[in-house]
C-alpha cells in the first residue's frame, strides 16, 4: 500500500506516461488506443481499475506524469471507486497532475446530485474536470486529444509552461453564493 509519487523517478526523454484509472475498464482501452498514436512525444499508457497499483511492477513502472480518473456518471460505484483511489496518490500529484474525465453526463437518467458531487470533488482537489463522449469514435478522439494537451504539459514536453500553471487555468471551481447572484443579473 504505497502512495504513487509524481517525482520519485527520473523522466524518460521525450516520453509522457499517463495512468488511466477506470473502475469499469471500458473507456480506458479505447482512449489508450487513440492516445498512443501521438507523434510528438512517446506516450505510454498504463491502465488500472483502481489504485493502489500492484507493488510487483513498482520497479519497472516509469514515472507517471498524469493520472486520469474516468468516472461514468451512470454508475454510483464508478464515482465511489474513484474517490477511494484518490487516497493512494501522493499530494504532489494534485499540483496539476490529476484530472477527472466524466462520461455519460448528457444521459437523462443521471441524477443532477451525482454530477454535483463530481464537480465538488474536482474543485476541492483543484483538478480539471473534462467531459467526454465514449460512444462515438469522434468522441473518443476528442477526449484523447484533450488529455494529450494536458499530458504533454504535465510531462514537461511543452516549453515555457508547467502543469501547475495550466491547472490554475483549467481547474474546476465552484463559485460562491454571492458570485452566483451577480452572474444572475449579468445574464
Amino acid at each position, binding site marked *: 500500500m504505497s502512495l504513487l509519487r509524481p517525482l520519485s523517478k527520473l523522466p524518460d526523454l521525450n516520453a509522457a506516461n499517463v495512468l488511466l484509472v477506470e473502475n469499469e475498464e471500458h473507456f480506458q482501452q479505447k482512449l489508450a488506443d487513440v492516445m498512443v498514436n501521438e507523434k510528438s512525444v512517446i506516450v505510454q499508457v498504463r491502465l488500472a481499475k483502481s489504485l493502489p497499483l500492484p507493488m510487483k511492477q513498482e520497479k519497472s513502472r516509469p514515472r507517471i506524469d498524469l493520472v486520469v480518473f474516468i468516472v461514468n456518471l451512470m454508475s454510483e460505484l464508478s464515482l465511489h471507486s474513484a474517490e477511494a483511489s484518490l487516497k493512494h496518490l501522493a499530494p504532489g500529484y494534485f499540483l496539476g497532475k490529476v484530472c477527472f474525465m466524466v462520461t455519460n453526463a448528457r444521459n437523462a437518467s443521471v441524477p*443532477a446530485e451525482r454530477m454535483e458531487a463530481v*464537480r465538488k470533488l474536482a474543485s476541492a482537489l483543484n483538478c*480539471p474536470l473534462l467531459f467526454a463522449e465514449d460512444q462515438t469514435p469522434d468522441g473518443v478522439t476528442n477526449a484523447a486529444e484533450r488529455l494529450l494537451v494536458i499530458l504533454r504539459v504535465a510531462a514537461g514536453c511543452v516549453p515555457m509552461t508547467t502543469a501547475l500553471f495550466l491547472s490554475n487555468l483549467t481547474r474546476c471551481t*465552484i463559485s460562491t*453564493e454571492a*458570485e*452566483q447572484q451577480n*452572474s444572475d443579473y449579468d445574464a
Partner: protein
Amino acid sequence: MDRHTSVARTPVSSVVVQRRSKSHRLSYRSNVGTMSHLGYTPGFSKRRLTTSRLAPKHSRITEVNPEQLALLVREWQLSYVTPLYRFRHGQLKSYSRQLAAFMVSEQQQGVAAEVGLESALKVSFTLVAGMAQTEEEANTVFIQIHSKPPFSAPDDPQKLLWSGWLTSVGGNPDYLRSLPEDFVCLPLFCSGGTEGLTALVKAWFQQTFDCCFGPLEINSVNLQWLAALWTDCHARSSIKQLKLVWSLPAEPPLEVTYTVHPQDAWELWRSIRQPGERGGEEEEDGSVGLEEVACFIKGLKSHFYRHFRVELSAGRLTQVSTALGSAKHGGRLKISNSSYMITTLTLLTECALLKMPI
C-alpha cells in the same frame, strides 16, 4: 448559446424573462454545464438542489374528487411540455372539436391509418379541479378520446381509446409569475394509450399552442425519494410491499428485484428518521429529506451486499413500486392510492420544469 431552439413561432421578446426562477435556472444550467468540455464555467457551476420536500398534511389527502380518481386508474407515460401559448381554459369545448377534426384529417392523410380510427371519434377536454396549489397555477386538463363503432346504438358504451392529462402541481411560484401573460404552464403531460395516438395528440398541441414535448425520465434520486415517501405512508395505508428493481450492467444484463416486507421497510425508515434533531411533534411534518432517503437506500443496499457481495450501486435503480403506486425510470407512473398523489405530482412537476429546455 441558443436558448430558443425549440420554440418556433413564439415571439422572441416574450421568452426572455428577467427573473428566472431557481428551478428553471437549474435545468438550463445543467445543460450548459455538460456542453462545455471543461466543467469549470464559474457562473454556472453553483446550483441549489432540493434537499427535502414537504409531504402535505393528511387532511389534504382525503379531499379527492371523482375527476381526480380518473387519474389513479392506469399507468401513465410521462412527458414534459413547455408553456402553452394562448391556451384558454374557457375554450375546452372548442379544443375538443379541433382535436377530433385534426385526428380525422390526419387519418385521411394516411398518417394514422394504423391506429384504428375507422370509427367516429369523440374527444373531450375536461377540467380537474383541486389540483392547483396556488393562485398562479393553471388548472389540470384531462383529455379523453372515445371511439364510437359505426353501427352502435346511441346508448352503447363507448370504447376509451386514449386518455391523458396536463397538469401543474406545486410549480415554483416565482417561475409561474415570471411567465408572460399569454403563456399557460402545465409542464407535466401524462398519456395512456397507443403511441400513435399519443403522437397525434402531441402534434396537435405543438401546432396549436406552439409548445414542445420531451420525455420525462425519473432519475434514481427521485425514484428513491418516492420509495421513501411511500414507505413513510405505511403506518396509515398499507403498502403491501416495497419493491425496488435495479438493472446491473453485466452481460447479459442482470435485473435485481428487491422486495421488502412492508413492516420491516417502514421500521428501517423510522429508524433512520428518529435520530436527535427531530422532535416528537415534528414527526408529523411529513418532510422527506434527501439525506434520509440516501441513508434508507444505503441501509437496504448494505443488507443486500452483506449477503450477495454484489454492488447494486454499479447499476441503476429502474423501478420502485408499492401498493400506493409505481414509478419506472423510463417515465412510467402509476398512482394507485390518493394518499400522496399531490406530493408525487409536485415532485414530477418540479422534474418536468427542470427538464424543460427553456
